[in-house]
């Protein structure tokens, strides 16, 4: 119950003068609203207020900014689209224009810039591909090139970094696997090597770090676990110890989660703590199932008929009928 209060307070703040975090407001809204949805509390937020705010954040070029008077960026464009999917209200924004904006962000090598100022990062590849998939417009960009850019970011440990040459990092591994999951190219990944590297993120405390020799952090519970889930290797870490670590990071007073036990709570870590618990099948809290690729509730994915791939999914065998008959004579 505490938890709900905490998220609710945060969402309340979203519409108040919460100035110092305004440059990440729409993403903040996505963290808060997703957390509310998987705890069955989305209805407590005024839908119209959310939609009208998002509408005001879309720019003439089609891109969406973090807040009113903040420039458009792919990070916030994805968050806005994710929220609109929760409310089945994609028509709140000008879809044609946002598609155009995302399309214009792709560079010749298949990478995506975050905005027109040219910063390249695999986070932006994920934002672009996930946004277009949610809008059912994946065909608008060059998927082959987008995948080959992701491939060029693969490292000796099987992981991925933010651009070619960059060190592996659990957050970016999640973004790259997410891109490959949506586009159906997961098999370019060295799953055993990467799975082992991800499993080695678990520390004796049960918590996960994002890179070797670093401290554990609740947000990595999500990046690492979602990645392992996509690779079909979620069982390679110790579930019980992981759950205990996440629960230690919940603040008894406010209900929110922090990066490590005893630190300040925030909606970012609250969402990723809850999502991780949902992914691990933690049954003591009534949490909705989360989709590992999009970090959105699974029921939304089902409603939208979106089926991002995982290495442990084989959807169809119908086409094998004729072939299977080869032993019949």
């Amino acid at each position: 119950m505490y938890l709900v209060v905490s998220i609710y307070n945060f969402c309340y703040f979203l519409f108040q003068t919460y100035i110092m975090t305004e440059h990440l407001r729409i993403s903040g809204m996505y963290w808060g609203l997703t957390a509310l949805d998987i705890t069955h509390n989305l209805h407590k937020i005024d839908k119209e207020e959310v939609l009208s705010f998002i509408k005001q954040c879309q720019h003439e070029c089609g891109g969406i900014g973090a807040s009113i008077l903040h420039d458009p960026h792919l990070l916030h464009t994805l968050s806005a689209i994710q929220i609109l999917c929760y409310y089945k209200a994609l028509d709140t924004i000008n879809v044609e224009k946002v598609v155009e904006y995302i399309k214009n962000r792709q560079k010749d090598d298949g990478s995506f810039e975050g905005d027109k100022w040219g910063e390249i990062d695999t986070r932006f590849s994920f934002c672009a591909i996930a946004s277009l998939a949610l809008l059912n417009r994946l065909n608008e960009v060059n998927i082959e090139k987008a995948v080959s850019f992701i491939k060029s970011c693969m490292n000796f440990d099987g992981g991925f970094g933010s651009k070619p040459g960059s060190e592996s990092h659990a957050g970016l591994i999640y973004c790259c696997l997410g891109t490959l999951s949506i586009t159906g190219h997961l098999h370019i990944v060295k799953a055993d090597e990467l799975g082992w590297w991800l499993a080695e993120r678990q520390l004796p405390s049960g918590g996960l770090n994002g890179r070797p020799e670093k401290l554990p952090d609740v947000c990595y519970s999500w990046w690492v676990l979602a990645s392992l889930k996509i690779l079909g290797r979620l069982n390679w870490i110790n579930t019980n110890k992981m759950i205990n670590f996440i629960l230690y990071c919940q603040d008894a007073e406010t209900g929110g989660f922090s990066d490590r036990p005893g630190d300040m709570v925030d909606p970012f870590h609250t969402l990723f703590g809850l999502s991780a618990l949902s992914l691990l099948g933690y049954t003591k809290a009534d949490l909705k199932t989360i989709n590992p690729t999009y970090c959105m509730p699974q029921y939304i994915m089902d409603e939208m008929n979106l089926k991002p791939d995982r290495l442990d999914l084989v959807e169809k065998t119908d086409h094998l009928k004729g072939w299977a008959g080869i032993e019949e004579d």
Partner: protein
Amino acid sequence: MHGRVKVRTTEEKERIMRAEKQKKAREFKDCYLLAMKMRKAGELDDKLADITKKMLYHHPDVYTLWNVRREILLSDRLSSSEELLEKALEDELALTEACLRENPKSYCVWHQREWVIERIKEPNWKKELALCQKCLELDERNFHCWDYRRFVARKAELTPTDELNFTTNKIENNFSNYSSWHYRSKLLEQLHGNRLGDAANQQVYNNEIDLVMNATFTDPSDTSTWFYQRWLLNYWKTPPQLWCIKLHKNFITVVFHKQVSSSSLKLLFKDKQDDGCQWSWQSANGKMYSPIWFVDLGDLKPENLDNFIVEFEGKSYSTSDEKTLPDSRDVSKLEEQLSNYKELIELEPSNKWAKLTVAQLMLDLDENSNYSSIISILEELIQVDPLRSNYYKDMLSKCKVKHKLNSIISDPYGFDKDTAIDLSSLDLTTLGGCESYLTFCSKIDLQCNLLSNEVLYQLYCLQQCKSLNLSQNNLTSLKSFPILHNLENLVLYPNEITDLEASDILKKHATKKLVITGHSDEELTKNEMKK
């Protein structure tokens, strides 16, 4: 709120702090609104530069403000005077440097610095390298700074060899520097492509192996080097790609040792002149990558296997091929490694990394003759490293399955489809990617293992299987049990499976003569559930 400890304060203190915070926030908001108003009015002047500068110094992540500053730098006022522009760009470098001192992990600031320096006529790259050096001394794992260093090194045209020496220095200072090992792997790839394991690069390769061994023996508990070592040792493996080609009725089936895409898969007929591209390959798992691909030839069915060739990644395969020759590379280095790490196990009996390395080396050298040693090391690892026990269990399962299937794997054309494959009582948690070797088997016994719901999807390969025994596993749901078109007899019980789920399986296999057995009440299974 990364790393911010929650502190308790008195109510009074909190009220004062809150009031102060609010005041600062209001001031910030006023400045922000003014800046946006000026920007909209096109007043890209010194005053706006000054306002944004003050705000960014304390709040470098407010990305829109950096955009405003870029607009100022690109404005007509500055671009009309080279002198003014150079001065403004230098000022911008100073601002980013000041910001980085406060917040060395701000994405926005690093990007601004890169953007600015690209616009300076004659950038001082030495100064940039020195800045990176300083920054990495403060935090040798700051990946923003490593990325910036790579950018600078490229611009300053430093050679990969220069940079390799840089990482050698870093590593010799501190073995536990994952970022340096990472960079090293990139530089070696730049220098040698992916042919580091080739005979021509033997010396380079051996030097790396020795460097790693030195590091792992100096501090066996540091994780960084072991990942680098795994990468190096993987260069020894040049696994064969294609396992077998089968012709049956009007289908040609190709099974690979790993998942591949069909993009470079071709079928060529010896008596026809074509490019082999007109056939449409289908994957068994319905995905773009699969270990099993087949082609429906329709009426063009060839008389025998000698009539066609399968080409994959430019290499030709036919069923009459001689078996792949064993690797002729010098394995003495690998054997030397094995004996050294066996020694390390003696010295550090609880070190999991050394154990895993020994198991890995044994797998690479001779999986079959080392079988029992590999199994016992992996069993020890389950005890030594309980956090990752399932990883080792999956690895064990894979070894056991491969060992059992050894004769099939090594001679796919020699085995008889009616051979019953016995994989029972092996404590298997997964088929570990070996399921494709079972593609042409008709009878498979998997009883008394530890298979769970999560690995049922692997059974999709068993499309020729008529009889499958899954009794006494850890199954509680059949949701991901695939349709197996030839399945006639499925032994499911005992498992924690409800009759309802079993009858769903029967329904899914509606057109077939499937019988589910093993239930205590056999009659119910056979008759009642069929309804």
